[in-house]
């Protein structure tokens, strides 16, 4: 009995972060099967490598997401309610297991990395840790973003920096550390008072519900927010996701930063040289169309094109102001490149600069969505097609 104790203790120690045994054993079994098939099918090469071990790279991605989405109370309303009802504080470990990275994670990922290194030597040894780390960080960005915490934006920036500086090991390591500690700070600060999660946009949608109404799912709440014509268009209902200037600025900077990081990475490490013109053409068109679509859905021109031409009202300022931002986006995207190349700016800096200006214009240029919907010179129309009626009498 005494001999078993250390094994049991190790198992319990690992169990803190490992998924359900079924999920943990499946990749191992799958790997064993692949290894066996590989052995019989190709006995000569089997001594050296087994490409099937690449399955651990996929598992590393799943494990990264699992570590966030399974353990974070944000995604488990009952768990969160229970935490709020007991004297748990952020100084204690979460009862169902930590969301932040712990030693077990490093051992699990390290083991998988070791197997891949031994059995698939053609794959870089950093693939498995990178897969895990990226999926874990993306999961953390999503979670902290839903809680409207500043660390979400900081993590997006830091992850971009990691991509940008991959070829400089010390810089990459520094950014890796920054991501690790930023995630820790984010989780620690957001878990001080889980009750405040209700004040976030997502909280108001009922995702972090603590009001004792678990009968309504997020989908049901989304469905219930639609009230049709006329109430969705003519009532006091305001835009639920306004973009303040600061938020628009941060989003634009982060997108531009990622464009720069990816371009730099592709150019230096992959050898892909991207041309300015072809990159900007399509996204700017899509961004302009999306903005026009959001603004003009249900807010139609006051008179038809024929009416405009016939009455010589070719330009209606109260309505046509809605097209100023999309036109600016198109001009920036399509002609800004000529200016920048004229100034001698390299694409890897020019494209991010244009991206920043395009997104800032699209997200923050007046009129705001509320201002437009309430005061624009448009014709409000029901754009939702009628739903079929079920001919079922209930009495």
């Amino acid at each position, binding site marked *: 009995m005494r001999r078993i104790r250390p094994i049991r203790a190790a198992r319990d120690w690992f169990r803190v972060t490992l998924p359900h045994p079924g999920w943990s054993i499946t990749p191992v079994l799958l790997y064993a099967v692949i290894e066996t098939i590989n052995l019989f099918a190709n006995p000569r090469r089997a001594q050296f490598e087994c490409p099937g071990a690449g399955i651990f790279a996929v598992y590393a991605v799943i494990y990264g997401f699992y570590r966030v989405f399974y353990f974070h109370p944000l995604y488990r309303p009952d768990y969160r309610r229970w935490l709020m009802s007991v004297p748990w504080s952020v100084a204690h470990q979460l009862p169902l297991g930590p969301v932040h990275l712990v030693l077990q994670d490093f051992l699990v990922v390290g083991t998988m990395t070791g197997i891949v290194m031994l059995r698939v030597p053609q794959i870089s040894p950093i693939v498995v840790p990178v897969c895990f780390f990226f999926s874990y960080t993306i999961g953390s960005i999503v979670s902290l973003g839903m809680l409207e915490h500043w660390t979400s934006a900081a993590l997006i920036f830091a992850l971009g920096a990691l991509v940008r500086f991959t070829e400089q090991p010390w810089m990459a390591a520094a950014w890796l550390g920054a991501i690790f500690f930023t995630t820790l700070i984010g989780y620690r600060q957001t878990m001080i008072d889980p009750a405040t999660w209700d004040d976030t946009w997502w909280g108001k949608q009922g995702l972090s519900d603590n009001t004792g109404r678990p009968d309504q799912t997020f989908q049901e709440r989304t*469905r*219930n927010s*639609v*009230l*049709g*014509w*006329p*109430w969705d268009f*003519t*009532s*006091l*209902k305001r835009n639920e996701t306004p973009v303040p200037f600061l938020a628009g600025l941060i989003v634009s900077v982060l997108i531009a930063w990622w464009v720069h990081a990816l371009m730099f990475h592709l150019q230096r490490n992959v050898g892909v040289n991207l041309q300015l013109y072809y990159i900007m053409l399509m996204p700017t068109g899509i961004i302009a169309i999306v903005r026009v679509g959001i603004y003009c859905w249900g807010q139609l021109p*006051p*008179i*038809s094109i*024929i*009416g405009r031409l*016939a*009455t010589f*009202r070719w330009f209606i300022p*109260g309505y046509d102001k809605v097209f100023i931002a999309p036109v600016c986006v198109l001009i920036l995207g399509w002609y800004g490149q000529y200016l920048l190349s004229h100034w001698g700016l390299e694409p890897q800096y020019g494209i991010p600069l244009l991206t920043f200006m395009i997104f800032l214009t699209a997200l923050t240029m007046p009129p705001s969505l*509320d*201002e437009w919907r*309430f*005061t*624009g*010179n*448009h*014709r*409000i129309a*029901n754009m*939702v097609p*009628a*739903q*079929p*009626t*079920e001919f*079922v*009498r*209930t*009495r």
Partner: protein
Amino acid sequence: MIRVVNVTQHYSIKPVLKNINLTIGESTRVAVIGPNGMGKTTLLSVIAGVLQPQKGYVEIDGMKRRESLDTELEIRRRAVFLPDQCWLPKNHTGREYLIRVGKLYDIDSQRLIDHADRLLKLFNLNDLAEAPIRTYSAGQQKKISLCSALITDAPILLLDEPFSGGLDPAGILAMKYLLQRLVINQRRTVVMTTPVPELVQEIADRLVVVRDGTIVADGSLHDLKREAGTGSLEDVLERVIFPDTLENIEAYFEAESKESR
């Protein structure tokens, strides 16, 4: 108070409203009547802020429509518009729908629950209150739409053809007396359109007759009778609203008899 000042509206080339001026005081029931396609709904839509007129403007309680975000919000709080055909969320139950609409107008929850209950009872929908709207008949859907406008507690109700759309006699009766009581007891203002002028003497204190985009008559039924020089509603309708109808009938049968010869 509602003020419509020099409003001209056209969708394409043909003007639908021509230089309309209209003032509607509080605590009154106004019926906008007239032949099809002559601008009744357009006039109501302009007052409701659904359409922004090409010329002129609309004021509600001294605030110009669509002038600023704050004033427009305040106007929307005071004046609600119900089109003749609503798009209803068919998976909501009737009660759910009413409560959600009421919440948009920041009405107290207790008041909402109680008011929804009374409205459902008034329109004989209490048995269907927990059933999804998709199971409602056309008339019942019309009733729940009317309830949704009433639950907002807005002082000004702008109703496009509230008495059509399959409303049964009980519904018409309920609506008729409800509007009357709202105007008398709560000093609300109701502006509605109706293509069925036979109802107007029971549902309105004031009639606004729209023909060819202009207001051809405006006043109480008594005023219109005096103007038309007749004592019956039928004669008033014939002379003020549909003056060409009898001539058109004569012309139709004249052509028929010529063909048969």
